């Protein structure tokens, strides 16, 4: 068993696809080996250049750009899925939200200080200074709104790709940060809080299915150092608590790959990554010694990130969930 695996986090994941309405057609967006591919766009870079020159940008290209922008965005972990159901967002929802955002800007030409405002008299020095401040604030507000709108559209588009993409994006983000716990992120903030919450939020639901514990009684922390971590159950009844310490990349290597719960075992690490066959280290019960299990992915069966079947059917996003593996011992 290795504690610092050298293989890619997504080695246990198969490819997946989603159908995206693009222009007048339906295009396939594909994820494979950690990368997003646009099968219907031979030269996305050239399309970006054309778009920069004033042409329209294809939705597939926009989605790929959004993926790139958020592939290391820790905030994705708060919005993204926790359990097998994924999040259902349709492309018509993305369009409606985008139009609503543009309508609801609230800072149109008629707003104070906006274009179209004709000064009726020459302002005093103090008034001019106040107007300059207001104008600067308004510019900043507009910029913030535009950025926030773009970000929201990005995230909704990525969610619209479906649960299979949603969990892969979460895995991508966690993998981008898990090895850098000791370093602050680009904004100078610690990475630990978001990663701890991402771990506990997902593990709590897995633990509920594993041993029937109330998710509120699951406490997770990031494990550092040798070994896979620890899982300890304490107390009884209302006082029962499950204390779990796992490496940050558990969310990427185990949960996002659909391996969290296999054959009533909690998978705590991947010993030999691969698809459709892998070997994992798993616990039959809290406090028990971990055992090595050879697991096999059975394709074609809808499955969520904890290896169980998702509830609900029928959206564009959910069709992609069938690309997720269902692991068996």
């Amino acid at each position: 068993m290795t504690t610092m695996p050298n293989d890619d986090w997504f080695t246990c994941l198969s490819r997946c696809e989603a159908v995206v309405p693009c222009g007048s057609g339906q295009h396939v967006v594909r994820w494979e080996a950690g990368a997003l591919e646009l099968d219907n766009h031979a030269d996305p870079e050239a399309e970006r250049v054309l778009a920069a020159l004033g042409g329209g940008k294809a939705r597939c290209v926009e989605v790929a750009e959004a993926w790139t922008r958020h592939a290391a965005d820790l905030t994705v972990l708060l919005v993204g899925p926790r359990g097998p159901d994924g999040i259902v967002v349709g492309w018509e929802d993305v369009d409606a939200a985008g139009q609503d955002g543009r309508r609801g800007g609230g800072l149109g030409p008629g707003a104070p200080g906006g274009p179209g405002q004709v000064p009726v008299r020459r302002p005093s020095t103090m008034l001019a200074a106040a107007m300059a401040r207001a104008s600067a604030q308004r510019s900043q507000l507009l910029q913030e709104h535009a950025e926030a709108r773009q970000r929201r559209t990005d995230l909704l588009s990525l969610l619209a790709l479906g649960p299979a993409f949603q969990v892969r994006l979460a895995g991508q983000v966690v993998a981008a940060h898990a090895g850098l716990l000791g370093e602050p992120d680009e904004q100078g903030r610690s990475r630990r809080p978001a990663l701890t919450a991402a771990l506990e939020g997902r593990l709590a639901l897995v633990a509920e299915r594993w041993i029937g514990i109330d998710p509120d009684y699951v406490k997770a922390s990031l494990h550092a150092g040798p070994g896979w971590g620890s899982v300890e159950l304490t107390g009884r009844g209302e006082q029962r608590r499950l204390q779990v310490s796992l490496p940050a990349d558990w969310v990427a290597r185990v949960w996002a790959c659909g391996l969290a719960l296999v054959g009533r075992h909690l998978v705590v690490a991947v010993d030999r990554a691969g698809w459709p066959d892998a070997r994992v280290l798993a616990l039959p019960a809290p406090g028990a010694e971990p055992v090595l299990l050879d697991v096999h992915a059975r394709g074609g069966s809808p499955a969520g990130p904890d290896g169980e079947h998702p509830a609900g059917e029928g959206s564009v996003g959910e069709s992609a969930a069938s690309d997720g593996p269902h692991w068996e011992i």
Partner: protein
Amino acid sequence: MNREGAETYLRLLAEAAMRRALAASPEQRLAGSADPGGHRTRLKLVGQALAAVGALDFGTLGDILVDFNLAMAVRAASDPGRDPGQALATSLALHGQPVHQLPVTWGVRLGLGRVEVTGPASPGAGPAGPTGPEREPGPDDADRFVPVGLKVPFRDADVSGELFLMSYTRTRAGARFFAVWNIRAPALRDISLIPFGQITVADDRGARYGLEFAPSGDSGWTSEIVLCPAPPPGARWLDVTAPGSTTVRVGLGAPDGDGTGNALVSKTETSPGEHLLATIGERLLTAVPDQPRNPWRQATAVAPPALRHMAAGLGDIVGALEAADVLSPLSPVPARLATLCASLGIAEHGIMAPPARQLPEPWLSVLSHYQRRKPEPVPLLDGYAAMTAALPELDGIGLTLLGLHHSEGGSSLYALARGPLPEAFLGPFGIDPTFPLSVWLRDSGGRWHAARPAERRRSGSRDAEPTMRLQLVPPLTRATPWAEVLAGGQTAEVRTRLPLRWGYPS
């Protein structure tokens, strides 16, 4: 302070809140409320508490709230009971804006709540502004605070009334009277009718001063009258002459002792978390509606529903403060807060500590006022009391008491605040965390009145010294001849007892 612990706590709370919200029954989720179960409110409340003690910056807090709202919106839209055509658009509209989840000003946002807006005014600035060049203060630059307590009647063809000068202050930001005004005629009580242009002020050397009138933003009865330029430090008196009346002489003689009202300072080693919880306790105490005017109608002796709703998050606030290492798990303050909640009829506060047997004396005094519920046989007349004391600095804030005003059943204590006061922002329970002092007043009958910050007023030339109106809860019920003022900071508290000179409008 453990900022990482603080952020982790808030993010884990967001996870739990989302789980609980989604586990709620479909009826609750589809009820149309923007915040079913109050999870969003509680998350914001805890975030505000962490920001108030400096354990979390506004940028991070805003990001968490925005993402939490988006996460809730997309999940609510996935609810099978919703109309598929409108689901996400409606949900996004219901669950909030993508930016600015916190009601903070630009100054606070850009400076992440740590904007040093104010500081001691420079000595050379004078009343025109605090931004002049710094120089070493000389012996003549000592601040002067004088209780005045004099009435200046005025009368001309259009208006008659009076100004009651409560106090005179001369600081590096300038010189000013703090006054209450009253117009007897005409019936229209418009402050612009006061003939300020005809009121003259001259000192003992014959120098004359211009007046700048700055009405207060509250009831309009109080105001500051700025003298331009500031009289010299050695001025012995000021003669104030208003149209239609005789000259009133305001003595500026030797200040009373050191100007602090013989204040007693004692150390109080409270942590930032304890201080915040105590402030929240005071906020709860002062949120209870007072005795109704109609004695036959029973008062509501419990905190109003909005506060009760928020108080459900107190346990989370305690946990968050402990996670941020600004509150010891052994602190007695959470237990006091639990007792206070129980006394106010707030059952679901979430504080795990067992209730304390004892509460601070001022808290008990206010609680007994609520429980007494007896209206005063003779209500206190509208009036004003001169009182002036510059309290020793607490947590970097110098508070100078300017006077008391009782009007229309409400009492207010006015004070000048000097020091590094950042721009105000809304903290948990509506408190202003940037004013870090707790102020209480005890009347001659031994009853305590919480002085809750109700208004902070700055004007361009005195940005460094805002005037604060502190609303007394409960209001005064008699013209107390003296008052003991207790101001508490995180590291020390100060007590001073001051005689009061009451005046009443004619």
